[in-house]
């Protein structure tokens, strides 16, 4: 039996927000694939739960009239992977979440949970960073929008405050149109594993030169990050091996990998440099480019 002390099944978004506002220790439970595991391990922080599983509106994936791709906080990874709007417009998000756990976990785990639990290794974080997704959050004061850029504030920490409920992710058209994007998860096993390094790139081309590169990593710093130096180094450069080498060199200024039982700092840096080239190349090719 899970050591739950308080449990509230929310009947509406307003009800969830009210329950969260009443108890500052309350945490949201969505798919349960992280929260229930932490409870199983006896973690003290997840004993007061507000359950949002009945809020079907938060499961929705769609495109709105302005061309924004909307992904509900409660949409499962499997729903995201299979959804035609995701496949047509932001396929890298599906590609990234398809690397999470195994089928049973993907059937329950949500992108909302993956981002809000602040994991440094979150597979969806890289894809969200290169598309600069917005997070639409509700609390007792009303609705606000935060960017994924800067949302992660430290290992396991995000800028959600007590009482906040993430409703959905929003990808604005300027952040996905004309981009080719790619995600690669480097891990020891091909399934049921946490990334040693995760890397996503989104590339926009002007003819055969890179007009914009967006490069993001997980497990390469205390939070998932974007790489300003490497992105700057790519601007206006031709699609050549020399450009990829420059990006791989520049990325060293953006990352701060560390040694853990999974991999040493030196090895991580090697993977980071290798992936910078591999993922940028593939993203550029998906944008319609050809390397010389």
């Amino acid at each position, binding site marked *: 039996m*899970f050591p739950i*002390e308080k449990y509230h099944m929310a009947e509406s978004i307003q009800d969830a927000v009210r329950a969260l506002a009443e108890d500052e220790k309350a945490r949201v439970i969505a798919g*349960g694939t992280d929260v229930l595991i932490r409870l*199983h*391990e006896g973690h003290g922080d997840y004993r007061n739960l507000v*359950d949002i599983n009945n809020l079907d509106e938060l499961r929705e994936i769609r495109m709105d009239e302005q061309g924004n791709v909307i992904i509900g906080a409660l949409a499962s990874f499997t729903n995201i992977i299979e959804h035609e709007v995701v496949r047509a417009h932001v396929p890298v998000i599906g590609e990234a979440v398809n690397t999470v756990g195994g089928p*049973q976990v993907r059937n*329950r785990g949500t992108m909302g949970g993956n981002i809000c639990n602040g994991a440094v290794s979150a597979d969806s974080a890289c894809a969200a960073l290169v598309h600069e997704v917005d997070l639409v959050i509700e609390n007792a004061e009303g609705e606000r929008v935060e960017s994924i850029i800067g949302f992660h504030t430290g290992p396991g920490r995000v800028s959600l405050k007590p009482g906040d409920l993430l409703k959905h992710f929003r990808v604005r058209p300027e952040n996905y149109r004309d981009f080719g994007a790619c995600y690669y998860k480097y891990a020891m096993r091909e399934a049921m594993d946490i990334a040693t390094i995760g890397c996503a790139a989104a590339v926009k081309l002007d003819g055969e030169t890179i007009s914009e590169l967006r490069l993001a990593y997980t497990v390469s710093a205390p939070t998932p990050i974007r790489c300003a130096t490497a992105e700057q180094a790519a601007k206006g450069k031709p699609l050549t091996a020399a450009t990829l080498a420059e990006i791989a060199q520049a990325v060293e200024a953006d990352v701060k990998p560390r040694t853990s039982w999974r991999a040493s700092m030196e090895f991580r840096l090697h993977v980071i440099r290798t992936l910078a080239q591999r993922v940028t190349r593939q993203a550029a090719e998906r944008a319609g480019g050809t390397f010389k």
Partner: protein
Amino acid sequence: MKKQTINLTVNGKEFTLDVDVRKSLADVLREQGFTSVKQGCGVGECGACTVLVDDVAVDSCIFLAMWANGKKVRTTEGECKNGKLSPVQQAYVEAGAVQCGFCTPGLIMTTTSFLERNKGRKVTREEIRKGHAGNLCRCTGYETIVKAVESVVEVAEEE
């Protein structure tokens, strides 16, 4: 902790249960006699507790019983109809994909869901492996399991 009443069907039979909200679906199913649902790791890694909820495979150890309210649950007990094994169950027997048997009920439910999702479509060996990545087996080395699955799905010619 309060109890709540849930209505669900398990293998086609209706149940109304007063469940403790702290309980997992795996706990509740076992209490009702569905002991094919094995509890292995308790954290969604081994897949031994896999059941289908509205035909979707889930780890019932990290699925609150509350969430099954109004849903249709399938365990491997219900796949056997009038004493006849389902094609998936039969395939496991014939391929020798069963050794100690602890992982078998979960794997059979994963294969059942995999089969239904890929109906009429050719799958590769790679897709079979990825589709069963959430289930661990310590005995078979997986080869016989993959063969069992191959014998019930349409398999694409691989290069």
